[in-house]
């Protein structure tokens, strides 16, 4: 599914609303400040397109949260703060050395065949990649199963694509306008 024009328009509108709210503080700030504000409003706009239905959108809005842009986020997203709170997955803190040692012992006890080894290594690899994916996708740690993770990734990629398209056309137009 590729980004549709309605999605683009909506993103544009919301992004503009966010930028307007930043207008007073943007004026004399440095480039980095401006960039931060632009990116923030773009991200919140992108997340608010989903209106809190997806995990990544909620997590993204939460991540961009600071005290001063509370109003911005609220108005843009239209989502109450309570619904944003994600259930954090309980992280079991394990001593890594101990875990590794016990795993080695287990592997020694099991009778291995060539196929099992290959399958186990493949599974390990896939697990590592899914962990990497969770790190990249906002809110990945809160997605309890892989099905949800892949669904969210799909949606996230599409939204990112719309964001990139809209921003790119704006930037191109602005830079072209400046050159004249």
């Amino acid at each position, binding site marked *: 599914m590729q*980004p*549709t*024009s*309605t999605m683009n*328009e909506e993103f*544009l*509108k919301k992004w*503009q609303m966010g*930028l*307007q709210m930043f*207008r*007073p503080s*943007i*004026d004399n700030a440095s*480039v*980095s400040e*401006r*960039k931060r*504000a*632009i990116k923030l409003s773009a991200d919140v706009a992108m997340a608010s397109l989903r209106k809190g239905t997806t995990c990544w959108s909620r997590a993204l809005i939460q991540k961009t949260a600071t005290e001063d842009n509370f109003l911005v986020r609220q108005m843009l997203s239209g989502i109450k703060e309570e619904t944003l709170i994600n259930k954090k997955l309980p992280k079991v803190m394990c001593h890594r050395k101990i875990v590794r040692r016990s795993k080695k012992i287990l592997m020694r006890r099991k009778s291995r*065949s060539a*196929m*099992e080894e290959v*399958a186990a290594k*493949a599974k390990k*690899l*896939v697990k590592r*990649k899914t962990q*990497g*994916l969770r790190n*990249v996708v906002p809110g990945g740690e809160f997605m309890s*199963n*892989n*099905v949800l993770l*892949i*669904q969210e*990734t*799909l949606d*996230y*990629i*599409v939204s*990112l*694509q719309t*964001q*990139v*398209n*809209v*921003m*790119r*056309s*704006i*930037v*191109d*137009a*602005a*830079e*072209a*306008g*400046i050159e*004249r």
Partner: protein
Amino acid sequence: MDPTGVSGARSNGGGATREATGLESLHLGDEFRQDNVGGGFTALLELPPTQAVKLLHFADSPSSSSQAATVTGIVPPLHHSYETLTFPSNSALLMERAARFSGETTTSSVPSTSSVKTEPADETNSSQAAVNNRSGKRKDSDKKTEILKKKKNKSSEENEKLPYVHVRARRGQATDSHSLAERARREKINARMKLLQELVPGCDKIQGTALVLDEIINHVQSLQRQVEMLSMRLASVNPRIDFNLDTILGSENGSLMDGSFSGTAMQVVWPHQVIETEQSYHQRQLQQPQQWPFDVLNQRAWGREEDQVHGNDSANLHPNQVKMEL
């Protein structure tokens, strides 16, 4: 995946089952071998368990009478005769026969989950079972119980008409609810991975979950980096450009949609060019209705600029004034 190979195996398996319907005449060795030259252990498994076991018991005996066996006899025998099975104690015999019929059913296609007729179901199941059995995880003693359970499950599934998704248990796989649910989950994941592969460019050719996931991660990271770059460019272009954004947007709303986004329907009848001159900005603004609360915008935006007198006339931004800001 080789569809012809699999279908060939399937038809062979079907042929073997059809020929093996004669329960009493068990001298199937030669026909079976002829039909399944190159078929694997799976070919053996394609036979219903009764025939398979009896075949093993009376191995290598030539037969000619089984040719007369009818196809219709298949379904009833499947269900009632497995109690009398005694699995061959000589597992070596099994493996030997397996080694003889090797090679044909190597790949497995994604098995369908809809309820199917018994025969085709056997054929589709066999290829999947082949892969599973090749993994060497099942012991011979387990196989018997699982095959029995699977047959029972099949019959019970056929009898009940439930409004569920019918998942046909495959030969050689456990049929308890846990593994069924697991299998359903796995299929869901695979379906979604396929969607992802279509979305991310260049992922169709790649095989293997890990590499596809790699590509997906790279794609997401590159998109995020692009967003960073674009916002940096926008911020550094010019401080005033933020104001222009608001004016530009009123006019560019349609042009953006039409010009830069491919494959979208024309919802607005607006000119196409993304890059505009100031005059055309002005003209289009006059033509199009304002969607933005430009009054609010202007008051805030232009308020600081003392040298520009805009007032509340948002629709008619003078092109010269726009130029000055740039």
